[in-house]
């Protein structure tokens, strides 16, 4: 299914995703004022920041939902310019959006394969464009089972009749299934209960153990410190710090976010640099 054979380096010195000087303005509002991003292969990078720090805009620029006004993005060293979300997906970069980007009245297989439906082999698919619904249903079952999300008995029920956690599961499964190089998750635990959140965090660790790096945007500090290898602190449209999770305390991270702590005062950390 995944045409991109990717000789993935297991050492974490390889940069999976790198962005420099991203600028995005909406009218007079500067949402991003020269933001940098650095994601190493095989790591979970948490992006934290107060409201209005430009986290969402940053993610939109990385995932192709918005085109930045300036700056460059490199995916495994190769410069890329995503004009739309499809471009990013074609490069093996998948995003779980906060609003999940699902079609609520469609069933689970239809949502998993949304935008990349599979056709029947032979003339039925070639000439008559007939979808391979049975194949997609089978694959959905395999996928949800392998992700431990198979608590949904009936795949043909519309996604809108699922619980919030199950819907999140569908969106995460879609990214986990197709995201071969980088997966971005925007607040994946925000709407979930304790147990469902834990499962999503487990899932993030699973994805990392497969060698696919994850960018996790979250407000939830315990979750961030639970799962992230490094933390990117976004403030006023820029990255103000990039630190190893083990090198910083939770109160300091929050202080950086709010501006109460100057990144230069951080022990061992370097402002906006590589620790």
């Amino acid at each position: 299914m995944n045409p991109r054979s990717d000789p993935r380096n297991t050492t974490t010195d390889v940069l999976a995703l790198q962005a420099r000087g991203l600028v995005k303005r909406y009218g007079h509002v500067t949402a991003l004022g020269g933001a940098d991003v650095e994601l190493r292969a095989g790591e979970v990078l948490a992006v934290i920041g107060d409201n209005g720090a430009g986290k969402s805009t940053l993610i939109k620029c990385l995932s192709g939902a918005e085109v930045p006004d300036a700056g460059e993005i490199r995916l495994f060293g190769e410069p890329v310019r995503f004009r739309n979300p499809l471009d990013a997906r074609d490069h093996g970069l998948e995003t779980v959006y906060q609003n999940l980007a699902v079609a609520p009245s469609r069933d689970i297989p239809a949502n998993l394969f949304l935008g990349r439906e599979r056709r029947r082999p032979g003339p039925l698919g070639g000439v008559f464009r007939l979808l391979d619904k049975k194949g997609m249903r089978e694959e959905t079952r395999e996928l949800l089972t392998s992700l431990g999300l198979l608590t949904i008995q009936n795949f043909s029920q519309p996604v809108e009749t699922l619980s919030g956690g199950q819907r999140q599961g569908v969106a995460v499964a879609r990214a986990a299934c197709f995201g071969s190089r980088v997966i971005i998750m925007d607040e994946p635990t925000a709407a979930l209960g304790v147990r469902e959140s834990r499962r999503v965090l487990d899932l993030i660790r699973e994805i990392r153990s497969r060698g696919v790096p994850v960018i996790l945007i979250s407000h939830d500090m315990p979750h961030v410190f639970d799962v992230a290898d490094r933390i990117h602190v976004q403030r006023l449209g820029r990255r103000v710090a990039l630190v190893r999770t083990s090198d910083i305390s939770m109160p300091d991270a929050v202080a950086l976010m709010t501006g109460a702590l100057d990144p230069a005062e951080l022990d061992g950390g370097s402002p906006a640099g590589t620790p």
Partner: protein
Amino acid sequence: MVHDTVPPTAADPPTTRPPQRGALARGQAALHTKPLLGPLTVLLLASLFFSVWVGSRFSDPLNISLIVQQVQIIGMVGIAQTLIVLTAGIDLSVGAITVLASVVMGKLAVDHGLPVPLALLLGVVVGGVCGGLNGVLVTRFRIPPFIATLGTLSVFSALTLFYSRSETIRAQDVPPLLSWPGRSINVLGTDVTYSSLMMIGCFAAVAYLLRGTAWGAHLHAVGDNREGARLSGIRTGRVLLSVYVVAGLICGLAAWFLIGRVGSVSPQAGENLNLQSITAVVIGGTSLFGGRGHVLGTLLGSLIVGVFSSGLALSGVDALWQVFTVGVLVIVAVAADQWIRKVAA
């Protein structure tokens, strides 16, 4: 498959919502997953009711054939309307496109002496172009479909009157090919018009496109959650534009059927098609909020209107009751849709 390497994580106890209790709730859930159930039930009950009340004059095969003939134009235009409504839009100009296309066919063939098949083809193409114009207004200029098609309704109607000089092409001048859909063949002892059969064929074809192809899946997704569809990598503008063009082409075909049905080519024909098509779509159970519904529901919806009209006419009550009943049906259908949609928490 990438996921083969993923070991199962600890599975939590099932978190699906508890099964709903009560016949009413079960019925609500069934209607939610099977949008054809409601209109099918109404059609069967209405047919049964009129068969008992009016008797054999209603259930006579000839009358059934007549009902189908009477609803075929609404049905065809209803197919186009269904496509638009599924994208959470509405098209007030479908009837105007149909009439314009029929006038183009008639004028080109009769007044300009073009070969009739070519005139027919150009008429259908004009339908597609009109639909495309609607689509460009909605996607490029971001005009809400209601307003865009309200505008083009007037524009197309005016063009029709300009081009035809408000004159009707008489039935005896209409070439046989243009009125061919109105001719009938004998199917199982009943006379059925070609256009009725072609209408059924169109319903089947569009049902296939919607259920069986990626285009149909994308159309539903755009109507369901447009921004979500875009973020999922669907080119929403392109999908929407194609939907309006296809709707226009279907109206172009409906124009041919309209000539067959009326016999002459009149710029005044099909005045009520715009609203009647919306009626058929709504009674057929397609949600005006987009994404949910079935094109075959529109066939059932138009048949329901036909059955009530015919049944009430044959029973001898005042003709105004037909109008009254259709109005009640529309309101009941939309109220039912609101109720059914509540299944989704």
